[in-house]
């Protein structure tokens, strides 16, 4: 496997970890150091826009 293939595999794995699966509402906090990187208080961790739309109502998005 080439370095670029390994990198692609890792990116794909992390994409699935961060952007797929069932969301438990209100329990999504990703922090770096002592700083909460993302906390929307909704159903979202690190998600792309399509995932946000899938898992929440527009009126809930701050």
């Amino acid at each position: 496997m080439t370095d670029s293939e390994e990198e692609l595999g890792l990116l794909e794995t992390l994409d699935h970890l961060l952007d797929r699966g069932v969301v438990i509402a209100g329990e999504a906090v990703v922090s770096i150091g002592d700083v909460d990187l993302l906390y929307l208080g909704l159903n979202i961790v690190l998600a792309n826009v399509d995932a946000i739309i899938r898992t929440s109502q527009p009126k809930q998005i701050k």
Partner: protein
Amino acid sequence: MKHVVIGAHLEEGDIEPLAGAIPVADLWLSGMPIDDAQPLGDRELLLRIAQTRAALLDRATFIAIRYGFTAHGQSDAAAKCAAHIERWGRLLREYRGMVEMTLKVAAASPRARPDRHDFESGAAYIRALHAATRAAEVVPEFRSAVDATLAPLAVRHRWSTRDTASLEFAALVRRESVAALNDAGSALKRDFASVPFLLSGPWPLEVFADDHE
């Protein structure tokens, strides 16, 4: 101490000793124990959980919980998951022995990403982004070939838009069909050398376990 929850499983034996097993009603959650103060954005933790997730899938099919959900013990986990348990149990029994495969393909004519400054509200901007995402389309011949060769190998399948530049074909397949699906993917690579796509998996139940499907 808390657990970063990885997934929901039917059997305790599907989890241990690869990860911690937390009983929730008649199901089990797999989790990685970490110190309360440990940040979830830690790179090593992310990679460790990704590796454990893959090892757990080798054992048995499970429902993936999106990264970021934590539980402080059994009662906390039970309270937070109560609304999902019945549905998870039904899905796990129905889809036992199945995994997901995904094929991401670049859009034939990617749409321009909307400019935030053109919108007065965040909600309008998000809607415009979503509209641009949904407008993405794949080369028709490629999509037809996927529908003709990969879809018949799946128990269920679905096309969805991921962003303004790509689409995704998700397939729920029996484990014994994974090799045939990969072979079909290799044939697509030969037949559509100019179409950038990535076939990956097996993955746990993600797309087909989503409450919002």
